[in-house]
């Protein structure tokens, strides 16, 4: 199975990563080789083997639902690309369909 450059562009789009043409040309064959190598996992992954998502059998950890002091807004915003009125300032999102 071959991963085409078009497929790489589609996946990059899903991951919100803009790729240059050179990057796409480089990544497609590399990803293909990697996928070929890792595909052997399906040979041993038979139906009778349960999947493991996590190494340790831990149960969900809960804490008391109590109000605690949190990071002051100014500190949380200190490294924001843009901030305004104690909030993160982000680019417009509402008319994306109109592009």
């Amino acid at each position: 199975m071959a991963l085409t450059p078009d497929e790489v562009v589609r996946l990059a789009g899903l991951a919100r990563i803009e790729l240059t043409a050179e990057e796409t040309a480089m990544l497609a064959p590399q990803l293909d080789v990697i996928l070929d190598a890792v595909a052997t996992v399906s040979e041993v992954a038979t139906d009778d083997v349960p999947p493991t998502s996590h190494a340790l059998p831990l149960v969900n950890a809960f804490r008391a639902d109590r109000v605690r002091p949190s990071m002051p807004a100014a500190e949380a915003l200190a490294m924001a690309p843009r901030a305004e009125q104690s909030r993160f300032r982000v680019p417009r999102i509402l008319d994306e369909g109109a592009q």
Partner: protein
Amino acid sequence: MSEPQSPRTSMTDAVTTGGAEILTSSATDLVAAMEAGQVSSVEITQACLDRIEAVDRQVHAFLTVDAERALRQAREVDSRRAAGQRLGPLAGVPLAVKDLFCYQGMVTTAASRMLAGWVSPYTSTVVQRCVDAGMVILGKTNLDEFAMGSSTETSAFGPTHNPWDLERIPGGSGGGSAAALAAFQAPLALGTDTGGSIRLPAALTGTVGVKPTYGGTSRYGVIAMASSLDQPGPCARTVADAALLHQVIAGYDPMDQTSIPRDVPPVVEACRQIDLAGMRLGVVTGLSGQGYAPGVTQRFEEAVAALRGAGAEVIEVSCPHFEHALGAYYLIQPAEVSSNLARYDAMRYGLRLDDDGEHSAEQVMAASRGAGFGAEAKRRIILGTYALSSGYYDAYYGSAQKVRTLISRDFEAAWATCDALISPTTPTTAFRIGERTDDPLAMYQADLCTIPANLAGIATGSFPAGLAPEDGLPVGLQVMAPVLCDDRVYRVGAALEAQLEAAWGGPLLASIPPLGAAAKEDVR
């Protein structure tokens, strides 16, 4: 500054305030010298800072050094010690921190353009515990971008050079921490290990690195790569030093949902018990042979003989599914990466490009992520996106999770016949910078021996086993022990260290070629 003297003498002689002896001393010896009033934390810290200044242009172990803050911490510890306060076992000892740990007020980059200049607004639990223990934070060390890599070459800020041979990689992802130890820039360092990022650099630099049991050390405040695998751990020049740092950083943390609410295994005590009588070690039969450098095989076999000499019974153990570990890892890890790195969306922190009122949020995201992530990060995010996408999920991610079960079963079966498993840490010695950058699969092969332990969440570490005769570069021996049996890793490591150092007449790092004036100018 002069080149450090042979550690061979400094390990036995009393530490003086001369500089060279300070740099090559173990943390254990430094603390003893501070307690005896022979040296101060300020002197030790200044010696490390001077050494960084002198050699880091060649090694490039550090991304950030904060001399002022370090010296302030050192002065505080000195005055507390002078006042007769009871201090922790590593108080006043300088520490180098992999630049994946948040430390309030210090830049944390994960070696990515995405986070260049980002100052952490809070401190990770592991670093906080070190600060609370009176340790002195020298700065942040280089790594592969977001800890993705086996060579420290994917760092957006340039590679780290192996102090044994500046033209070679120090391993990765935590190459900066390991190189800082081998270059005598710091006596202790912090790492994180997702598929070998502590153990591989330890092996390739002739140092000690331990990946604790998953859940044994807190991930709170550590930049996430693959959350079901990531685990912070200690890096050191001696086994006892690693255990002391392990003891400081380990233990339950309510801020980490996967933290284990159990006592820390007796790692410090385990180092004092240097005979292995009654212990049965299993050599993993599949982790040898074709693809392993002759010098790696030779030193590993000699190390096995040394462990026998320490009283261990050594058997062979087959782990039939380990051969599929690499495949499972390079599906599970990218899948988790694609999810974890989604947070770099250019909205709340990190790089933001094209925010000019013309481009939508989605376009700003794609442009920022395209420019902010390096090639390896993009490779893995796209691979993970593919492995998780509909139609491929069962064949890839689903199968990989099943292999994870099979690997855990291999370990469980092994524990029925032996107390710990051993193998080479990695199939080869340090390769040349640039040698594998265009061949990701060849790069991934470096993690062949280290990955099974991460998939199963067990305790593991790498210890110096000697220099490969063909190239004079370090070889590591890996120890793997059951969940929460981290003490066994240290017990085997300490026994190996005692046996081999007796045979060598001193530590392996005593034979590292000198850095400094004799070395090439500006190899970067």
